[in-house]
């Protein structure tokens, strides 16, 4: 209930109640500056997170989790070796399905290059085996060694697999971005708490006089909370705006691939920085409220 009143008072503003707390220039500037700096950093952490996430998604899509085995063998052995490979694949962990392409499918694949009347049986065209891997993926090195030992004519082609560590790195980067955001938020809360405590200590006499003339704790706390919330909101607004501007002004390198050019916001994600000032204000609201009520409890 008092919380609701706090929020209403915050939105409405109460110039008379604001006057009961003297202006403390230093803590005011400190709060605004810290909020601004933190909001600036938060924009970068946010951009990093979103960009890393986009990169990871794009690479994961390209990977498509498929590979191919090409088998070249004398005509007489080809069926037996195909069966051998399928057996090996069935025993390999991380492989979802494996399937030898039929003659018709191979012909369809080659048709664009050689025309429809390809005498497939007379040509030394390798047999293709299509592999779909599971999300965990398979051990390519182990598979390759086993194929070399048991079916020397088979070649594992997994051209996209090299990207997997990059995807892991991008995922990790996204996580680090979010962790940074949480740390920034926590630091903001800590610093605003310190600033609020300093202001409250400086105004000990004000608190005592207010209590003695019959002010309720929530009333007194509100005056401080309003002050600090406004400062944090203003500071974070400026910081977030500058951070967003800095990102917008990042020079664009190549359109595709280059990681640095991907650091930024795209489309609707430009709206994300808008969440930072309210978040800073909410942090200041709670930090100041808790600090004020705790301080007041030490007074009768």
């Amino acid at each position, binding site marked *: 209930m008092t919380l609701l009143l706090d929020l209403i008072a915050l939105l409405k503003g109460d110039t*008379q*109640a604001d*006057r*009961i707390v*003297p*202006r403390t220039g230093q803590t005011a500037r400190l709060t605004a500056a810290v909020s601004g700096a933190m909001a600036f950093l938060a924009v970068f952490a946010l951009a990093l997170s979103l960009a890393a996430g986009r990169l990871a998604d794009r690479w994961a899509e390209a990977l498509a989790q498929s590979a191919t085995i090409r088998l070249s063998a004398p005509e007489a052995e080809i069926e037996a070796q195909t069966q051998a490979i399928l057996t090996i694949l069935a025993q390999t962990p991380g492989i979802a399905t494996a399937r030898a392409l039929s003659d018709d499918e191979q012909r369809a694949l080659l048709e664009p290059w050689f025309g429809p009347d390809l005498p497939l049986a007379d040509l030394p065209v390798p047999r293709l085996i299509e592999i779909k891997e599971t999300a965990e993926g398979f051990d390519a090195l182990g598979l390759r060694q086993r194929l070399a030992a048991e079916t020397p004519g088979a070649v594992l082609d997994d051209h996209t697999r090299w990207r997997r560590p990059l995807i892991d790195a991008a995922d990790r980067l996204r996580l680090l971005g979010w962790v940074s955001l949480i740390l920034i938020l926590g630091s903001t809360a800590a610093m605003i708490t310190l600033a609020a405590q300093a202001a409250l200590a400086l105004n000990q*006499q*004000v608190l*005592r*006089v*207010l*209590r*003695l*003339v*019959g*002010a*309720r*704790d*929530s*009333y*007194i706390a509100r005056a401080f909370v309003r002050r600090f919330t406004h400062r944090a909101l203003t500071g974070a607004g400026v910081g977030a705006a500058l951070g967003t501007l800095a990102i917008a002004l990042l020079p664009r390198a190549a359109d595709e691939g280059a990681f640095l050019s991907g650091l930024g916001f795209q489309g609707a994600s430009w709206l994300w920085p808008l969440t930072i000032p309210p978040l800073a204000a909410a942090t200041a609201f709670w930090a100041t409220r808790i600090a004020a009520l705790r301080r*007041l*409890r030490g007074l*009768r």
Partner: protein
Amino acid sequence: MIEMQDAAYGYGATPILSDMTLRLAPGSFHFLTGPSGAGKTTLLKLCYAELLATAGTITLFGQDANGLDRDAIARTRQRIGVVHQDCEFLDHLPVSENIALPLVVAGRDSADQDSNLKELIAWVGLSGRAHARPPELSGGERQRAALARAIIMDPDVILADEPTGNVDWDMSLRLLNLLCELNRMGKTIVIATHDLALIRAAKAQVQARVLRIADGRLTAAGTNL
């Protein structure tokens, strides 16, 4: 409205007051006297719940003071006007806003109180000083500003702790006259003072009881001062 039954208080282990039994009837006028350090300020603090009795009971407007939560204490203080011994103000606000402060914090501030405020400031003789800051006031002006702040909420009880503490005799009489006038308007008054001349001066104007604190106990002082 304020009652004490065998109330006691001590800062830490040392008892300051014990066996305090007292009833402040509506419209009564009490002097609280005793040597410096006897516990007059302590007793008044018990009356507005800045201190809580360590034994016995203190009843404020029918409620046990020890059972009041912080909001209830605030509401109780809105009904008791206190002139504190070291009358502290908000030094960054002008005198007039300091006097209006109890109204503001009680959420009762509005334009129609404005003429009341002006009248009150004139009554305590501070019209010319309304825009001054508290640190610019003389001792007597501070005491009168504190008195005005104590009565702005039109409380039934007024507790004044050494209201003539650091003012000259003329100003003391002026403050006493204001308090006597308030009593004639029906207010319950308690004045803590070690100044016996002030008590004698009051006897001509009001029917006052004199209580004396000595050795941590409350006794009714004889009329022969």
